[in-house]
């Protein structure tokens, strides 16, 4: 047995210096001062997930664009510019032909057509250039539907009708892809949220009841789920799109379909929740709560739901991109939104052909918007899941 024990390091750490003040607080009963609220803990853990942080920023940008798309878009997304048909993304220069650095500008382009194939091409005319300016006047719109204005984020006001700045090129009718994507974000990013929300609420409540009570309640809910899940969705969609009034605006039609989708979608959520409940209702803390005389609803909501919050968050964030993708899938089937409505699904369907892929690949940029938003949602969801994980250290 060793007798000589080294005296621990006595150099005071900054922490220790502060301890005097804290000391008094503890003694005076300020016990909660060191307990970070749960959301703060979540935020700390979430911050750790670098990709989730980046993704959250991207999503904020996307939603900003969706809300203020008129401001972000330099052009009316429906305006056809006959002279810009199939224009590729406009090159933005910071160095002119003489090699001088300047504020970002673009050159005037000249259109040419191959007489054999009718292929359209554009060449830059380096003698005429237009500076890109910010907060420039453009087409009239109402910001947030309220404030009439004509100020846009950026543009080339000097060019007038002669030349446009097309960040992502122009489509087959000479419409600015960037403006169209910005407008498309509004529909694509917003419509799915409602569907996800409905399926979430239904799924958690019914799945929870089913898994928690078991017995005939479980059987009933399970049969219902089974039944709903066996109703084939495609004919259902077809019926709906046909049955909805012809004069309904297309967004309302799609909104209806989204709601129906979520009415089917909740069953997935419910199965997950039920499985968790089955495993969990045996656990001691549930028993303890019950012995304490907590009501069943309270047991579910206060004790069991928080314990698998991570699952719900994971499923939720996976469901939002699922909805975005469902929109593109529906459009592909011709059951979703239709022009003149602008959504990413519609833009993608317009571009879903070999011609676009070979001759004007830039019209596929809505695909990137979809991928990036899905990616971002997934990372944010992942980060949230990890942050909310009750087992996380």
């Amino acid at each position, binding site marked *: 047995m*060793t007798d000589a024990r080294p005296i*621990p390091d006595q150099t005071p750490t900054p922490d220790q210096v502060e301890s005097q003040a*804290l000391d008094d607080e*503890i003694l005076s009963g300020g016990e909660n001062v060191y307990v970070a609220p749960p959301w703060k803990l979540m935020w700390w853990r979430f911050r750790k997930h670098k990709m989730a942080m980046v993704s959250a920023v991207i999503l904020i940008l996307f939603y900003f664009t969706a809300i203020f798309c008129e401001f972000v878009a330099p052009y009316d997304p429906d305006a056809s510019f006959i002279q810009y048909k199939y224009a590729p993304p406009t090159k933005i220069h910071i160095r002119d032909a003489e090699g001088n650095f300047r504020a970002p500008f673009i050159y005037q382009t000249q259109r040419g057509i191959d007489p054999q194939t009718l292929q359209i091409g554009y060449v830059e005319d380096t003698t005429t250039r237009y500076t890109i300016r910010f907060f420039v006047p453009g087409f009239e719109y109402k910001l947030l539907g309220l404030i009439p204005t004509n100020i846009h984020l950026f543009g080339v006001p000097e060019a007038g009708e002669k030349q446009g700045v097309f960040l992502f090129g122009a489509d087959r009718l000479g419409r600015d892809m960037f403006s169209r994507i910005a407008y498309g974000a509004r529909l694509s990013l917003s419509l799915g949220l409602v569907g996800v929300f409905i399926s979430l609420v239904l799924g958690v409540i019914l799945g929870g009841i089913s898994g928690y009570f078991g017995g005939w309640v479980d059987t009933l809910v399970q049969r219902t789920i089974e039944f709903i899940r066996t109703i084939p969705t495609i004919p259902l969609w077809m019926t709906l799109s046909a049955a909805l009034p012809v004069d309904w605006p297309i967004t309302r039609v799609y909104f209806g379909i989204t709601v129906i989708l979520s009415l089917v979608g909740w069953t997935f959520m419910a199965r997950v929740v039920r499985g968790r409940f089955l495993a969990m209702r045996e656990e001691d803390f549930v028993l303890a709560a019950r012995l304490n005389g907590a009501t069943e609803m309270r047991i579910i909501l206060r004790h069991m739901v928080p314990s698998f919050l991570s699952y719900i968050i994971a499923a939720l964030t996976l469901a939002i991109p699922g909805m975005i993708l469902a929109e593109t899938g529906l459009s592909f089937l011709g059951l979703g939104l239709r022009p003149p409505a602008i959504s990413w699904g519609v833009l993608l369907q317009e571009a879903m052909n070999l011609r676009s892929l070979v001759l004007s690949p830039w019209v596929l940029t809505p695909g990137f918007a979809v991928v990036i938003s899905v990616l971002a949602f997934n990372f944010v969801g992942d980060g949230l899941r990890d942050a909310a994980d009750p087992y996380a250290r």
Partner: protein
Amino acid sequence: MKQDQLLIAIKNLKTYFFLDEGTVRALDGVDFDIWRGQTIGVVGESGCGKSVTARSILRIVPRPGRIVDGTITFYRRLHDNGAGQIEEIDLTKLDPTGPEMRNIRGAEIALVPQEPMASLSPVHTIGNQICEAIMLHQKVGKEEARVKAIEMLDRAGFPQPKQRIDSYPHQLSGGLRQRAVIAMGLSCHPSLLIADEPTTALDVTTEAQILRLMRSLQHDLGMAIMFITHNLGVVAQMCEDVVVMYMGRIVEEAPVDDIFHNPKHPYTQALLRSIPRLGQKTKERRQLESIRGTVPDPYTRPRGCAFHPRCTQRIRGVCDQTEPPWLEVEPGHKVRCVLYG
């Protein structure tokens, strides 16, 4: 106690957890020894570092925790050829996932965990989980391992082990699960069994049975037990020596009787005051004291004696300024407190 009876010597063990919120010094210089056949109790409030000590010995400190300093010397008695010969191994130097460490884990040092239900895989039979441990450390086949497992279960007081070895954990009562876990821990005849609050989840009758069982098994098998608990009653019943921990440090170490009858450290004294004594009446139980205040935030350890903010006998200007010394007040009774300096 002869030197060759030393089983484990822990010196200046520091295990820190590196979190975003700050560094948690879960163990901040822990020293104590475990002797062969000894039953040593480790007591303290939640978060004082009891379990981390156990996990440090087993080298299964979960990330982002890490042993940053100190040694854990394990004196291994070689069985096969050089019978009785002793090999010194510093466990902190081993790769925690490497074969050497794994050969010690389970075989030489076994763990009986806190929650037997959660500690058994719900989808494997207990037989499967016990046999696995046996086959891992002994060169035996499946059949033989099964026989040994049944034997172990039997010894652990598991009724009808032959029939019930293929049960799943959730089919068993809490007591039986704990017996199964103990059987698993003992299956390879370890020289140290770390029992991490093995009876917290059990009712009093079962707790008593289990404790009795552990004692008799220790008697039969001659192993050392490191008994981690916050229940001083259990300590009194089980242990020969007691180590009291507070905020990652040992504040008092003494034979069990000394701790109970002559506690030195104010913390130990407070602990003892907070538990009901045997024979106390229900009425009196209301007069039990709790230790005032709460354990400080683990990121900001108070300066000086970590216990001073809660201490009734603290001396202003001393306790909150200087590290208290580690003093042997009586033979075998050590305390970390300025009151005895």
